[in-house]
């Protein structure tokens, strides 16, 4: 491949953002088509990469590696492996749909589209960069458009939520930066793959210090903190409900669909390969934290009356499953059978990452439609009997809801099943505790369904509730179709990541 495919993937949306920024006199129609086209470019490039992608190769493909800052041994290094491809495709699917969802927003659509494209480009940069400097650049860069998008177009509490989101994440990232600076001082490289290699052959432990030493611990905790805030890992999650709830619908879709995955990606790309021993050492407390996210997240969702906050907590719950899987793998010790469970857990985590992105985006869109139709209300008590008034909308939302619940036959099941299979094999008690999360999820999702869609018409529904129409189909139908297709044919995803995951499990250093 001669064309710099990955650079194009990252830079086209960013360039598009700049372009939109310059076109001051553009008509709304032009803005819409231009921004949608630029956003779809990711999907187009992603599908192209998919065609030429070889799943059997474990290392990065479509590599672009150029010397950047020679004195600091920093390279411009982009690479695509199964996990990144999955995330690029997810971004490519969720972003255009979120943009279409934003067409209802009347204020300053040009600026919105520009910021959104910038956000998309930054996220793609995070998923493709393999050297710390520009990885971190994109990591931090994604915060800026997100901040403005939340603050300027969000709900009544948007200002505070945006500040909290920005400062909290940046605070965590500061520790991440310090950690990597220390790594650089110790090893002289910031390349993720090289650092992983150094960790594997013990050089990193020699240079940084053994597992219990203060230096190694501080570096590890710094990197952990930076990533933990992003996913988020309980208890670093309190920024999430307000940010997701106050953000406008398209931004919520993107935040839950893509940005939260940046944190999980960080765990799998940075933390685990570079610090496997430290992660193993504190795996049990981390398992408890992930379980807290699963169980407390689901139970807190049960208690919410604001529908967006409810879905936000549900996101916390689902992402904690991914972390649960990783920590269970990290806690593995013992004979070889663990490898099967490890493969299952990791495969499940990646599938869950993709599938949750779809179902959560769809649910946020549904709540966004509810909010739209009712003139800004989104409390659970503000609706009733929506299914009578809008049966097709109810049907599509129902599919998204059951996908989120993990109903077999839809995409959410496979990831969850594999995660549970893996976690049970590595830490059975954790799987048993996580079942409470499954139960609470079923309860709150069905309560949401019952209070809003079932029952007699009430609340905002009484004033008239038109069914789904026109462009709204364009957002819902692809998501729902993918949910059904991936539920029946998970091989489409599993085929991409299985060799990668098997390799990871094979490299599992079992003490």
């Amino acid at each position, binding site marked *: 491949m001669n064309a710099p495919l990955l650079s194009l993937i990252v830079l086209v949306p960013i360039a598009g953002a700049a372009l939109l920024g310059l076109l001051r006199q553009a008509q709304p129609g032009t803005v819409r088509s231009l921004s949608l086209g630029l956003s779809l470019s990711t999907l187009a490039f992603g599908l192209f990469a998919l065609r030429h992608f070889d799943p059997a190769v474990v290392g990065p493909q479509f590599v672009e590696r150029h010397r950047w800052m020679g004195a600091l041994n920093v390279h411009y290094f982009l690479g695509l492996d199964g996990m990144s491809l999955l995330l690029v495709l997810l971004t490519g699917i969720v972003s255009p749909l979120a943009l279409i969802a934003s067409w209802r927003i009347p204020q300053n659509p040009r600026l919105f589209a520009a910021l959104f494209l910038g956000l998309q480009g930054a996220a793609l940069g995070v998923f493709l960069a393999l050297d710390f400097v520009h990885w971190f650049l994109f990591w931090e860069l994604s915060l800026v458009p997100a901040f403005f998008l939340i603050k300027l177009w969000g709900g009544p509490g948007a200002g505070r939520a945006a500040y909290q989101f920005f400062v*909290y994440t940046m605070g965590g990232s500061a520790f991440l930066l310090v950690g990597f600076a220390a790594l650089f001082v110790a090893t002289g490289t910031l390349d993720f793959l090289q650092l992983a290699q150094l960790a594997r052959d013990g050089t990193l432990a020699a240079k940084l210090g053994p597992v219990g030493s203060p230096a190694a611990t501080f570096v590890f905790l710094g990197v952990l903190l930076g990533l933990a805030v992003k996913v988020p890992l309980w*208890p670093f*999650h*309190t920024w999430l*409900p307000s940010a997701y709830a106050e953000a406008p619908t398209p931004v919520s879709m993107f935040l839950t669909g893509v940005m939260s995955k940046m944190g999980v990606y960080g765990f799998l790309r940075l933390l685990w390969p570079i610090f496997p021993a430290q992660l193993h050492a504190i795996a049990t407390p981390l398992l408890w934290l992930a379980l807290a996210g699963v*169980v*407390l*997240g689901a*139970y*807190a969702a*049960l*208690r*919410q009356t604001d529908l967006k906050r409810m879905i936000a907590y549900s996101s916390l719950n689902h992402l904690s499953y991914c972390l649960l899987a990783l920590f269970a793998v990290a806690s593995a010790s013992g004979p070889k059978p663990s*490898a*099967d*469970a490890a*493969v*299952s857990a990791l*495969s499940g985590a990646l599938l869950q990452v993709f599938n949750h992105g779809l179902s959560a985006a769809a649910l946020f869109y549904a709540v966004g439609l509810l909010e739209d139709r009712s003139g800004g209300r989104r409390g659970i008590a503000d609706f009733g*009997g929506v299914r*009578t008034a809008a049966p097709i909308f109810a049907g599509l939302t129902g599919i998204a809801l*059951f996908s989120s619940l993990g*109903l*077999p*036959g839809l995409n959410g*099941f*496979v990831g969850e*099943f*594999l995660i*549970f*299979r893996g976690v*049970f*094999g590595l830490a*059975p008690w954790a*799987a*048993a505790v996580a*079942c409470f999360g*499954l*139960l*609470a999820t*079923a*309860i709150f999702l*069905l*309560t949401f*369904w*019952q209070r809003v*869609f*079932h*029952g*007699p*018409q009430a609340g905002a529904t009484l004033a008239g509730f038109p069914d789904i129409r026109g462009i709204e189909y364009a957002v819902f139908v692809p998501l729902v179709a993918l949910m059904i297709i991936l539920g029946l*044919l*998970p*091989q489409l995803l*599993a*085929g991409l990541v*299985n060799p990668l*995951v*098997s390799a990871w*499990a094979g490299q599992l250093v079992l003490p």
Partner: protein
Amino acid sequence: MSLSASQLWLIPALPLLAAAIGALTPRGGRKLAAGAAILALAGAFLLSCGALVGALADPAQHLVHNFSWFDLGAGTVRLGFLLDPLTALMCVMVTFVGLLIFIFSTGYMQEDANFTRFFCFLSLFAAAMLGLLVANSLLLLFICWELVGVASYLLIGFWFHKPEAAAAAKKAFITTRIGDLGLLLGMLWLYDATGSLLFYDAGQGVLENAALATLAGQVTVGGLAVSTAIGLLIFCGAVGKSGQFPLHVWLPDAMEGPTPVSALIHAATMVAAGVFLIARVYPLMAADQALVAVPVHALSVVAFIGAITALLGAVIAVAQNDLKRILAFSTVSQLGYMMLALGVGSWVAAIFHLLTHAFFKALLFLGAGSVIHAAHHEQDIRQLGGLRGPMKITFITFAIGTMALAGVPFLFSGFWSKEAILHAAHGWSVSHLPFYLALVAVVLTAFYMTRLVMQAFFGRPRSHAAEHAHENRVAMTGPLVLLAICAVLLGFLGTPYWPWLQRTLDPTFKAEAGGAGLMVLSIVLVAFGLGIGWAIYGRHVRATATAPDPLAVRAPGLWAALGDRLGFDAFYAATVFKLNAGAAAFADALDRHVVDGAIRLLVRLGEFAGVVHRETDEDLLNGGFDAASRGLRAGGNSYSKVQTGDAHGYLRAVALGFVALVLLVMLGGGR
């Protein structure tokens, strides 16, 4: 023609196709939706018959067709289809009963505006149920199990604008989900212990000897064998789905759905899925029977739970007044019988009873549906009465169903299947308690069914609706007749004198002799129950709807408690729901106050650091610098005062300086 294992997928595929057609059909396309559903199920029925032929060719064989679903690690996750007599018989039953119920529904749901949606969901249910039956993989079974649950949810809540229906649907799903979590854990454990979820896989399957020996040999928590633990977890799923104690509370509420739904799902098929599951994984459940040192055997738990449920359901049914709820509790009780049969070691008796029960319970429910439809949705038996005149076909078929359920001897299928169960319970070596409980339940079953029939069909009409009831159309009475015929004939497949069914299911089955005494005992008990029922309710059928029940007069406290379903719902509300709500409140408060509070504290600390910084800058550093500058200026100011402008003064200074210099030179050391 016979079906092979690799073609089994067609059986669930046809209704699934019909469901897809139904989903896309607009509101007006009634004929299309109903026609597709009925044709699909008829096709599935024919295919099931073909499968039965194929299975009967060699009843001892388990013919499988396994395939890969998706890659995982070095191997793949595999699913599969299984063809054996159990599967084939169940498929034939489900498709046949389903077909009749579908036809019944075309009449029953005539006036409903959402006709097409109803048939879409019914077809979805049928597809999922059939998928469950043909599965050779616990994973595929679980998938279809959950889909059946969803279809049930959609159908119970079919009239979703009614809050009670919406609530009942949610309750059903959540209660079964609690059981399903146990099933999930059992499945995960099984996968972890054996590396496979296929039942039969050329010696590698989990129900085959190699795996069973491994599982029975390992010991886990509390001294239980691993196979026992896994079996009990899988049984949790069955407890939920089949409405066993203590997860039986959803089944009576599920009667909020349309009556065909109650007939199909909550009488004949879905609730039987739990029994089927245990029968399917019977080798696993029975793997620990040979072990002596274990604290409990899996099947013992099954037996006791079944016996308790059988009695519980029968006792509560005595005091119910809603036609469908009596039948619902009756179903709970009968499912208890089936579990009891499984537990005491005779899974073939359980399946026999499952098959006969499917027919006569579906018959009873459809009969109830016929009554309800005719009486304009009046379901309270106190408000009915005298229906035996105007609704002859319904009455006769209902009576046949009643006699089958009660176990009237020889002619009716229920008698033979119940006999088989009692026989097996009597012969159980562990304990006779389940047997006695089952005997009490026999009496109660006859009793409450007599009560129902007497109050609904005999006497004089006690309400406006009952007065104007008239027989329904052929679409509704036809299936009733067919089911009644089956309720009679089916029993003859499993009599001890010709145990065709038992031998087909389990080729090693040996009919035991010496059951005559037991048969006499059960006949006596049935007669006793019918007699008391007739004596209390039949001799003087209640005159008005509001007159108190004769038993209520004699034992008001007990009657009220039974009418209130022994307070299970209230108990669960006070404990489980409260616990749940408490957990939710705790989680939310933890987030809002503790975790968020910690963050706010950090923010305050950050702000404080900012204030300190600012003060240091402004007051300490800036101020200090300013003060130093001022001092310098003041110093300069005062120093400039030396310049007095007075020349004489300067001269004086010069002179004094000169003198000082001289003194210094003279006294200070000279040179």
